[in-house]
């Protein structure tokens, strides 16, 4: 048994890492060409949440959660996101300021972990599109798509449009090597997307939002 064990262990521990590296380096990132485009084109995709209510599902590591997410733009221009279950019990209440400041007003004990809060904060910041500093944007193209890349404290936020800039194809949060989160906002009505999807690529964590009338 012993002669087989060591190589097997090395293989079993290295192979997933090697495959992971190969798979996670998005080929589109490698083949991108520099381009000249104005990041202002993204402003029309920035969701104009006055007050919007979304039927929400969350699937995380085999667990399913559902409820309602209320998004409201406050008089001080901050955006509040309140998630509760169908019976009204609150899961969390977050505040996003236009300058990037973030505040947790309340969160249920089970979710009250630094890693969970950070993940949710970054996921929602990606769709709120609050910090699109044109001076820091890098623009690239590949396969008929335009990539607007915004460096973050850690990694990058990608906003990917079609070539004419009239469709937001998807958004991504990525490290130097791999895509961490992919997100879409579809069927805008009066500046508010009807459907929003957030899908993590490094572990099973998906959020689906479908707008409903209040």
């Amino acid at each position, binding site marked *: 048994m012993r002669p087989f064990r060591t190589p097997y262990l090395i293989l079993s521990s290295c192979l997933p890492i090697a495959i992971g590296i190969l798979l996670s380096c998005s080929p589109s990132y490698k083949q991108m060409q520099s381009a000249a485009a104005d990041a202002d084109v993204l402003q029309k995709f920035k969701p104009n949440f006055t*007050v919007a*209510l979304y*039927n929400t*599902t969350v699937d995380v590591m085999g667990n*399913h959660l*559902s409820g*309602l997410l*209320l998004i*409201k733009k*406050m008089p001080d221009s901050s955006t*509040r996101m*309140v998630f*509760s279950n*169908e*019976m*009204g*019990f*609150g899961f969390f*209440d977050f505040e996003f300021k236009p300058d990037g400041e973030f505040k947790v*007003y*309340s969160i*249920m*004990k089970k979710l009250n972990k630094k890693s969970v809060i950070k993940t949710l904060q970054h996921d929602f910041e990606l769709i709120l599109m609050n910090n699109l500093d044109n001076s820091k944007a890098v623009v690239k193209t590949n396969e008929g798509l335009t990539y607007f890349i915004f460096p973050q404290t850690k990694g990058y936020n990608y906003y990917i449009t079609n070539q004419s800039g009239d469709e937001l194809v998807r958004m991504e949060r990525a490290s130097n090597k791999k895509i961490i989160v992919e997100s879409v906002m579809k069927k805008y009505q009066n500046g508010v997307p009807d459907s929003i999807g957030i899908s993590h690529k490094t572990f099973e964590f998906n959020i689906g939002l479908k707008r*409903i*009338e*209040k």
Partner: protein
Amino acid sequence: MRKTILLLLVLVSGFIVKGQYAGYTAVADLPKFKASFAAAAQKTNSIKADFIQDKNLSMLSEKITSKGNFWFKKDSRVRMEYNQPFKYLMILNKDKAYVKDGAKESKVSTKSNKMFQQINKIMIDCMQGTTLDNTDFKTRVFENKTNALVELTPVAKGMKEMFKSINVIVDKKDFSVVSIQMQELSGDNTIMRFTNKEINAAIPDTLFDIK
């Protein structure tokens, strides 16, 4: 001085309202109330009702209203079907729970899921008239001409993390539940009002089936 007195009056009146609820006075004979509540509940084998639920987000000055249908049948069976503005079905059948949101169906054992266990207990206690016996809460009872207000303050750890208090308003005529008000620690609250109540209506057992 006048300002100080005024401030004190405002504070004191605030405490009085908080302690006793406007329009309500403490029930003088609690054992008698308990006995009447239990006797009425004994006669209640089923409840069919509609409900309107308002989630009040205090800091956002927003209200989320949802509507649906409610069924209760002894022993320990509840079906809640939200129809507006979303579809959501929850069946509680003894220690099992079934949830359907959209196309997704899930079955949960209330023994292993604390949240469902607590929802189950609150709902069943409210309907079976055993609210006052729930040791997870400290209870106080108030009344006005038509209703009684049962104030439940959580003492159990899990409940304390979820709710500041739960107030159950019952109709003194038949001790059926008029509304359930859940006050969260954040200041937000959810009020569920029951209308078109039919006590002891014929309800098929199949409505509570968890397959």
